């Protein structure tokens, strides 16, 4: 249908429909629905993540975070990892850690020179995804992942195990705060893909029983440096 014709029809309908507007009270406080994180955002974040079937671990130093990550690499013994390029992961010495454990390391700078079919095959074959997050939301136990080159959306999606490492400065109390951060960065700069992740992949499609790992990672680990 022609654009003008379509919009003209909507314009007429919207105008006619104003006769049937519903009455909604006009004294709704601006912050209605704000929950927040309470006094200990990192603890709240961990508790919420565990409640949705994730495995959250609170650690007190980057040293301890590296140890926790090393333990996961031993537990899952992946052959290859699909990783974000992120300052926190660099500080942890992720590349060296993967090498120590004999895990193939794939991230943006190593994948970009490959031809597309090869790069895709590497992404599909990865057995663990290692990322940080853009923000972590304590109220809901979510990671906010804004995609850019180097922070691929597939790292938290294709492998059966996803490990994310976040630090205290990345934690916001409430979902509303996360959106305020996106607004502050300028809505015109919104990443091509921003995904909130709140737990391991699940389905309730069979008799409403929760089954994990249908498409996304069935195992979801978050290491929180407080």
């Amino acid at each position: 249908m022609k654009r003008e014709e379509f919009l003209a029809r909507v314009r007429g309908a919207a105008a006619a429909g104003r006769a049937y507007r519903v009455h909604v009270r006009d004294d709704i406080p601006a912050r209605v629905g704000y929950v927040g994180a309470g006094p200990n955002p990192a603890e709240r974040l961990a508790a919420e993540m565990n409640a949705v079937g994730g495995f959250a671990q609170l650690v007190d130093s980057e040293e301890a975070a590296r140890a926790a990550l090393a333990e996961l690499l031993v537990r899952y013994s992946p052959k290859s990892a699909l990783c974000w390029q992120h300052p926190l992961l660099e500080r942890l010495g992720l590349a060296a850690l993967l090498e120590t454990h004999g895990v193939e390391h794939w991230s943006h700078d190593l994948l970009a020179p490959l031809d597309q079919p090869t790069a895709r095959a590497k992404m599909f074959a990865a057995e663990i995804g290692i990322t940080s997050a853009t923000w972590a939301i304590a109220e809901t136990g979510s990671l906010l992942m804004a995609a850019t080159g180097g922070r691929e959306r597939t790292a938290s999606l294709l492998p059966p195990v996803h490990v994310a490492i976040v630090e205290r400065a990345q934690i916001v109390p409430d979902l509303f705060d996360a959106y305020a951060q996106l607004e502050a960065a300028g809505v015109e700069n919104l990443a091509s893909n921003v995904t909130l992740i709140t737990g391991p992949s699940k389905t309730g499609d069979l008799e409403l029983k929760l089954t994990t790992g249908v498409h996304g990672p069935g195992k979801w680990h978050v290491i929180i440096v407080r």
Partner: protein
Amino acid sequence: MTDYAVHEHEEFLTAADEALADPSLQSALSMLADTLGQRNKDAFAELSDSGLLRDRARAIKDATLAELDRHLETLEASVNRRGGQVHYAADGADACQTIAGIIRAAGGRHVVKSKSMTTEEIHLNRALEAEGFHVVETDFGEYILQVAGQRPSHLVAPAVHLRIPQVAKILGDDAGEQLPEDAEKLAAYARRTLRKEFARADVGISGANFAVAETGTVVLVTNEGNGRLTTSMPRVHIALLGMEKVIPQLADLPVFLKVLARAATGQKLSIYTSMITGRRQPGELDGPDEFHLVVLDNGRSRILGGPLRESLFCIRCGACLNACPIYRNIGGHAYGGVYAGPIGAVLTPLYSGLTHHPHLPHASSLCGACQAACPVKIAIPEMLVQLREQLHREPSQANRVENAIYRLWAAMLRRPRLYRLATWLATRTIGRWPGGWIRHLPGLGGWTGARDFPAPAPESFRDWWHREGQA
């Protein structure tokens, strides 16, 4: 694979009777209230002022629809700014043609789909298959239904009417091997099978839970991750948007996200909430090269300009289905349309014509549980009553017996003496009926066939008042 017949189970009463007599369906449905229904209540209890938050969501919908044309224009400009294309489709056929055209122009052949009720509404799969495209549903429930050739029976749990052994049979027959009757193993089978489809697909088609006008963002709320794969792996992403799903700004989104997952499944947020803005940006290794947004009217503008406009507030959470005593007994297929339950009883007559679905507005006890469960407080019972009134004015629906009874009743109410005589007679005849309930009324079998008629009291209130009340 075949699409389900569009008008299968059109006859509501027959379909409802069949559903009531189906023990497998009855046991599948019996889980709804205890799981989804209860989780919904618990999740809202955590929000101290959830009633006000729902009012805010409702107010945003109302204000947006009042100027929908303007918001659509803003949306289009935003999508264009980010390198995407917007297409407008007047109806289902128009949308199917548009989408097929995009796929052809992109040289696509293998299509993966994430769950979308709007694509079900326009019967997109059938249209694309007729064009020779290979189309695969990737939501686990939708995949099962596509293999079985069935229609979704619930907005968010499309295969809720099936038990695990039935699913094992459906998928096993398709795979040509025996599959275990085990939820985890069946899910693992689907993951393996569908990964191959994601690897080779060149086009991904999604719906849209919301579209943010100021940013050109399409929002997808899912639990499995298939929505993310559908919009990240293929080189073309096409999103089909029911035009009422537009919200003006990014700041409006958390208001809806806070109520949507709670109402749908009792989660604070669904596992994945994806905000997709245009195609991939330079330097990104994944994400589509092309982004197309197809904006669908298909009867929505007709509804927008009329008294049942509020039905366009619906965010498709399914809470009214879980809350409805009728839905929980007859399941989704009996409603005859793509949308089931209380909101389906409103939407289906609005979209496909009231006289084609004369029983749907009556498929409700008007108990109000749907409105109480609705995250945007849609006045569903009131709308059903309005539809009943419209039906009453339809000459094709005239019922001579019913009209005669109401005329008689009205005549009696206008003549006090006649009324008193009638009640006196009634209390002294059928008022003495043993048990107080009448199981069969001659000439009114349609009414007493499914429920008992309350016998009048043995004494009228007036008589009692004359005797006792004035003392």
